[in-house]
């Protein structure tokens, strides 16, 4: 079963990516002494709570101090702070994987939880909503416009889009976002400058959805502007390359109608490499999303990330870095599966 094996291989590679990321993160954390500081903060926090609990029952300060110190020693051992950081690596990796990194410093969920896990669980769907919509629209634009202009290389519209792709490569997403806010929200006042819902949000389903749509127009346009340029151009190049192959000529000689030639002999054949490039482009869309969320105050993980940086929240940054890697790997995995079905030649 070649298909299954291929998928297995890709899955394994991507799993390795996650493992390596975790390892890399924790080695950096360990080697820079960051994990020591973090764990110390965690322990001190717990010790403080413990002491508060005991203050009521134990009156003698030296006795109290002794018990508290004992407790602290136990914690230090439990967290492995008495050992050098390489020894703690497996434990630390586990901690990152389970988001056991303390509480967020300056962010909370809607319900008021400051647990990192809760925060991410709340923010993740909002980010995914933004990313998938934008990636979907960009891919659609890339495919339709790219294949269209590939049939007329050198034309005005073709040149327009090749310049457009150069611009969209050079245009920082976040600056585009800022410009959009400046134009559409600040001067024209036709669209909201940020957020996900109006305050207070509509309660009924349909107005609520429309409100969301209204708020999503600018961030999605920003991301689409950033992503679609290169995708259009790539599609165009791939389609043009494929169109030069001999079998396309054969198909024409067979008297197949041009649209069938286009569909079955050009787009169908060019699809796998286009998908490959979309896979590679995903990394770009992720970073674009972090910045776009920041600019528009879209309450997803990107905004959380930015908050974490501004408030110097180590635990949150570590957790988010891990989650972003995970999202990326999962998205790639999905596309790889698609790819295997598209290209019968694929063999690793």
């Amino acid at each position, binding site marked *: 079963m070649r298909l299954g094996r291929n998928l297995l291989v890709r899955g394994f590679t991507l799993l390795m990516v996650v493992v390596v990321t975790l390892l890399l993160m924790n080695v950096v954390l360990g080697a820079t002494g960051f994990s020591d500081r973090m764990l110390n903060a965690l322990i001190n926090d717990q010790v403080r709570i413990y002491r508060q609990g005991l203050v009521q029952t134990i009156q003698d300060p030296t006795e109290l101090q002794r018990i508290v110190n004992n407790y602290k020693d136990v914690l230090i051992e439990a967290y492995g702070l008495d050992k050098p950081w390489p020894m703690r690596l497996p434990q630390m990796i586990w901690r990152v994987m389970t988001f056991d990194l303390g509480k967020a410093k300056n962010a909370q969920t809607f319900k008021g939880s400051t647990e990192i896990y809760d925060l991410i669980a709340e923010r993740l769907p909002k980010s995914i909503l933004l990313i998938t919509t934008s990636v979907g629209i960009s891919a659609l634009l890339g495919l339709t416009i790219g294949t269209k202009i590939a049939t007329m290389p050198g034309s005005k519209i073709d040149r327009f889009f090749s310049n457009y792709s150069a611009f969209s490569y050079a245009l920082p997403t976040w600056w585009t976002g800022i410009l959009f806010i400046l134009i559409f929200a600040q001067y024209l006042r036709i669209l909201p400058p940020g957020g996900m819902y109006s305050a207070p949000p509509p309660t009924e389903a349909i107005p609520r959805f429309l409100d969301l749509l209204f708020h999503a127009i600018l961030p999605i346009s920003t991301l689409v502007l950033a992503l679609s340029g290169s995708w259009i151009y790539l599609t165009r190049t791939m389609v043009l390359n494929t169109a030069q192959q001999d079998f396309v000529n054969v198909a024409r000689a067979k008297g197949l109608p041009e649209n069938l030639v286009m569909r079955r002999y050009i787009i169908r054949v060019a699809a796998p490499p286009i998908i490959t490039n979309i896979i590679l482009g995903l990394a770009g869309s992720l970073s674009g999303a*972090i910045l776009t969320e920041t600019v528009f105050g879209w309450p997803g993980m990107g905004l959380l990330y930015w908050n974490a940086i501004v408030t110097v929240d180590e635990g949150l940054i570590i957790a988010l870095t891990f989650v972003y890697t995970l999202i990326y790997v999962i998205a790639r995995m999905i596309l790889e599966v698609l790819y295997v079905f598209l290209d019968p030649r694929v063999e690793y």
Partner: protein
Amino acid sequence: MGFNAKDALNEFWSSRVSKLGVFFMVTLFAISFYVLVSYPSNFGTSYWNRPQHWADYPKAVPPTWTQMLTSDKKAQHQILVTDEVYVRDKGIRALEYSIRFNYKADEYPKFTSFSLSELTFYDDPPFVYLTLERPDGTVIEDLLFHSIPYPSPGDEPPFVKYVESPLRIYLPGSSEVNSALSRFVRSEYELGLTPLDIGNSGQEQYIFGTPDSEGNFDQPLTGSYTMKIRVETFHEDDTVGSVKFVVGGTVFGYMGTDTLGRDLAVGLLFGFPVALFIGFITSTLTTIVGSVLGIWGGYVGGRTDDVIQRVSDILNNLPQLPILIFLVFILGQNIWNIILVLVFFGWPGLTILVRSMVLQAKEEQFIEASVAIGASRSWIMARHIFPQVAPFIFTQMIFYTPSAILAEAALSFLGLGDPSLPTWGQILERGFQTGAIYLGYWWWIIPPGLLIVITALCFVFIAQGLEPVVNPRLRRRR
């Protein structure tokens, strides 16, 4: 077809985008060179990020040229400095300064202020008098009088003051100025205004205006003003470094200022060499690492290649920005950290590309021919493999430059820039954090972004122009 440098150059030059790119590039380099020569090396820490340096500057005002777009003439912010001194020795010894300036606006200045720096005195502290001669010939005598405070007891002469930070007198805050103006309008226009009235209605209109028939100061008096500054001293060796008079306006300079009063033109100019530096260093290092590993792995093959391939595959599969954020956050916001991290994640992409090209290049029979002749590996890599991939590598290097600049800008925007080196991204970040978008401070937001885009575009254009020249697919044999 063989590689012909002249044809390649012609082909490159024939495209409009390449010409545009080269033109921009030359401009970028010229500006960067100017900045390198004229700016102090500690610009970031000692000037840009030191609020005192910008004390005399207006806060968050648009560029001067914006008044060309409106019918009203806005008050231009003027910082007038002089150290040209006339020493009068008859009678009381005095250091006299004279500052001439033009005032052309339709509105009054926002404020005025006076500063004095590097004062040295040996005896009693000097007195400072300001007298303003106005375009219509009227003179406001003793607009400001200020006596320098006595030195702390125990200090020995010479007494040196106002070196680190100058003496700064904000005229609207001074009741003496109001009194002087009250005297002035009474004697000149026979208007009975108390110092309190003056202070409440804004002293600038009395300094810079004349009353109309109804006694309203609606229109500023435009023309040439002269501010006379007299420092009366009590010892013949007393000196003053320089004096400064600020006419606070609502527009300033070529690029306006931010909320700290920083002259954005100065900061934006400094961004040129920094952007080029980050772009070039990063792309050069990335290219060196990426192509060496790519050529080596591709040609030598075997286990070395496997390892290089695996590592580059994994690194290439990571989402860059989150990891960049993480690493720069942990390692510290230092330009070298940023560059190193960018290189660390940049090389695998190039290695993968170069390797695949080398795999193709080494199938060429002249490689085997060279082996058959007895050439060593290093000879073959240097003489036969490298020349085949070099033009491609060069294009990739140019192509990678803007992405390094953009990556740094993105990090800066997230607040992870190196504070000792102001960049366009950092200026934007300050603007964003301050809420410049919502306050409508477009001059703080648009120019830095535009410069990033133009710089990146210039490289993209050049790379695009080079592509058909070096792309082996477009340059097939026969």
